C-alpha cells in the first residue's frame, strides 16, 4: 500500500493503523490512525508528521490519535485527538485548535423538500440577511463588556435567558451549552475587542449554514434517527458549522505567545512551534484553560444565536412559528476543545 510517508505504518485492524515509537526520535507513545485502507492512502504527509509530533508531547497517554478526517493542520493534524495526564501533562492551543469550540449543530424541521422548494430563493435571502457571513460581519446582538462576560461564562444559557432559543435546546448541546470554569479575567482586551460584535455571525472559510434534505437510503440506524427527530424521506434539516470566530482565535494566539516563553522556563521543547504548550497544572496552563472555556462558551452562544435567527427566517418565510414547524435542536457538538 502506497502512503504519503516514509514511516513504518503497521496494520492493527483494517480500520486502525499504528506508527511505532521507533519511527521518530522523541515519540513517547505510538500514533494510531483510524481509517480504511482507501482513506489512509489519501491522507497527506502532514498527517503522519503531525500525529507523530503530538506523540512527543510531555504527559501524553497511550496513543496520539488521528480520526478518518485527518489532514494537515496547525500543530495537531485536523482530526487529531490526545489525552494527557493532568499532573505531568501539557495543554496546547494548537491541540485545541485556533477556532476554539468550532462545532456542528443540527436543527430538524417538519418540512419536506416539496414544501420548501417553491420558497427556497426567499428562504436563502432571509437566511443571508439574518445570519451575517464573511469579512466584517457584525451580529445583531449588541453587547457591552458586562454582557459579553455573561456570554463568556454562561454560553448558550445566556442566550436562552435573553430569549434567543428555547430552554429545552440546552439538553441537546454538549455540556448543556455552558462549560463551568470560564474566567473572563484570563482573556485579553484584544480578544474581547475582536469578539464583542461577532455574536451570531458565521465567519468564512469552511464554515457554513446549509439547508439539507434527508435521504432515507442514507439513514443507517432508523430507530435512533427517529428518536432524534429524523423521521423520513425528503425531510428538511439545517446544519451549522462555525465556532468562536475572531475571539477564540485571539485567545489561542495570545496564549501561544505566552507559552513560547513559558516553554523555555519549564524546559519543554516541541517539534513544531504551533505545538507551543505549558504544563496543565502551571499558572500559564490553567489561565489558558480558563480562557479557552470562555471561548468555548462564546462558540456555543454563537451557534445558539444563529439558531434563533434560522428559526426566525423559517417562521417569516413559511408563516408559522418555529415551534409549529418542529424546529427542534437535534445536537450541538464541539470538535475543537480540551476537557479536564
Amino acid at each position, binding site marked *: 500500500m502506497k502512503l504519503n510517508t516514509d514511516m513504518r505504518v503497521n496494520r492493527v485492524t483494517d480500520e486502525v493503523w499504528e506508527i511505532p515509537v521507533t519511527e521518530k526520535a522523541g515519540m513517547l507513545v505510538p500514533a494510531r490512525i483510524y481509517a480504511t485502507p482507501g482513506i489512509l492512502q489519501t491522507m*497527506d504527509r502532514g498527517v503522519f508528521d503531525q500525529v507523530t509530533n503530538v506523540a512527543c508531547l510531555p504527559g501524553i497517554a497511550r496513543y496520539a490519535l488521528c480520526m478518518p478526517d485527518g*489532514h*494537515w493542520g*496547525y*500543530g495537531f493534524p*485536523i482530526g487529531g485527538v490526545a489525552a494527557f495526564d493532568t499532573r505531568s501533562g501539557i495543554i496546547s492551543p494548537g491541540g485545541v485548535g*485556533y*477556532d476554539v469550540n468550532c462545532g456542528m449543530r443540527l436543527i430538524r424541521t417538519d418540512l419536506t423538500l416539496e414544501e420548501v422548494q417553491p420558497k427556497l430563493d426567499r428562504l436563502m435571502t432571509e437566511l443571508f440577511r439574518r445570519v451575517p*457571513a*464573511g*469579512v*466584517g*460581519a*457584525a451580529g445583531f446582538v449588541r453587547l457591552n463588556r458586562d454582557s459579553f462576560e455573561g456570554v463568556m461564562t454562561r454560553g448558550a444559557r445566556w442566550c436562552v435567558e435573553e430569549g434567543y432559543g428555547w430552554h429545552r435546546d440546552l439538553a441537546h448541546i454538549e455540556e448543556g451549552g455552558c462549560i463551568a470554569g470560564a474566567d473572563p479575567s484570563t482573556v485579553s482586551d*484584544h480578544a474581547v*475587542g*475582536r*469578539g464583542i*460584535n*461577532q455574536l451570531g455571525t458565521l*465567519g*468564512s*472559510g*469552511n464554515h457554513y449554514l446549509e439547508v439539507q434534505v434527508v435521504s432515507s437510503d442514507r439513514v443507517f440506524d432508523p430507530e435512533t434517527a427517529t428518536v432524534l427527530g429524523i423521521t423520513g424521506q425528503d425531510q428538511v434539516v439545517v446544519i451549522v458549522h462555525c465556532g468562536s*470566530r*475572531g475571539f477564540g*482565535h*485571539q485567545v*489561542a*494566539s495570545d496564549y*501561544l505567545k505566552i507559552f513560547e516563553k513559558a516553554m523555555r522556563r519549564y524546559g519543554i521543547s516541541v517539534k513544531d*512551534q*504551533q505545538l507551543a504548550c505549558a504544563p496543565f497544572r502551571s499558572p500559564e496552563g490553567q489561565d489558558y484553560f480558563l480562557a479557552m472555556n470562555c471561548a468555548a462558551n462564546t462558540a456555543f452562544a454563537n451557534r445558539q444565536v444563529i439558531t434563533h435567527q434560522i428559526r426566525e427566517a423559517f417562521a417569516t418565510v413559511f408563516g408559522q412559528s418555529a415551534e409549529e414547524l418542529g424546529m427542534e435542536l437535534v445536537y450541538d457538538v464541539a470538535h475543537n476543545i480540551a476537557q479536564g
Partner: protein
Amino acid sequence: MHSYQFLDDIAVADLAFKAEGDSVEELFRAATEALLETLADPSTVVVTWERRIEHVCGALDELLFEWLSDLVYWKDAAGVVFHEADLSVVQKDTTWTLATVLRGAAVDRTTQILHNDVKGVTKHLYEVKQQGMRWYAQVVVDV
C-alpha cells in the same frame, strides 16, 4: 521592488502567500499588500479610517508576524477593511522599528469587493529569510 503570490497547494482549507522584496521594507510592503488583498480588493475601499501603529521588535520574523496580526485585529475590532498602509522599517542596533499609517474604511458590502474573513496569521510553515540580496516571507492565514 516587491511582489507577492498566493500559494494554492500549502493550506488545505486556508490561504497562503509568498512575499518578496529588494529590502526588508519592500518585503513588508509585499506581505501587507497580500494580506490586504486577502481581505478585500483595496481599490474598492475609499479611505475614511486611519490609524498609526508602531512596533519595536528584536526579531524581524516576529515583527512581521505582529504587524500582520494587527491588520487582522483592526479588521475585527474596528469592522474595517483596508486601502493601503504607508510603512517604514528601520533597524537600529539589534532592534527593528516598524512605523505605519494604516488606512481603510468600514466594511460596506454595497461598494467594496470583499474576499476572505481571515481569523489569524499562523506560524504554520511561516518563515522570513534573506537569499542573496532579496528578502522572502511565507505566510499561512487561517480563514
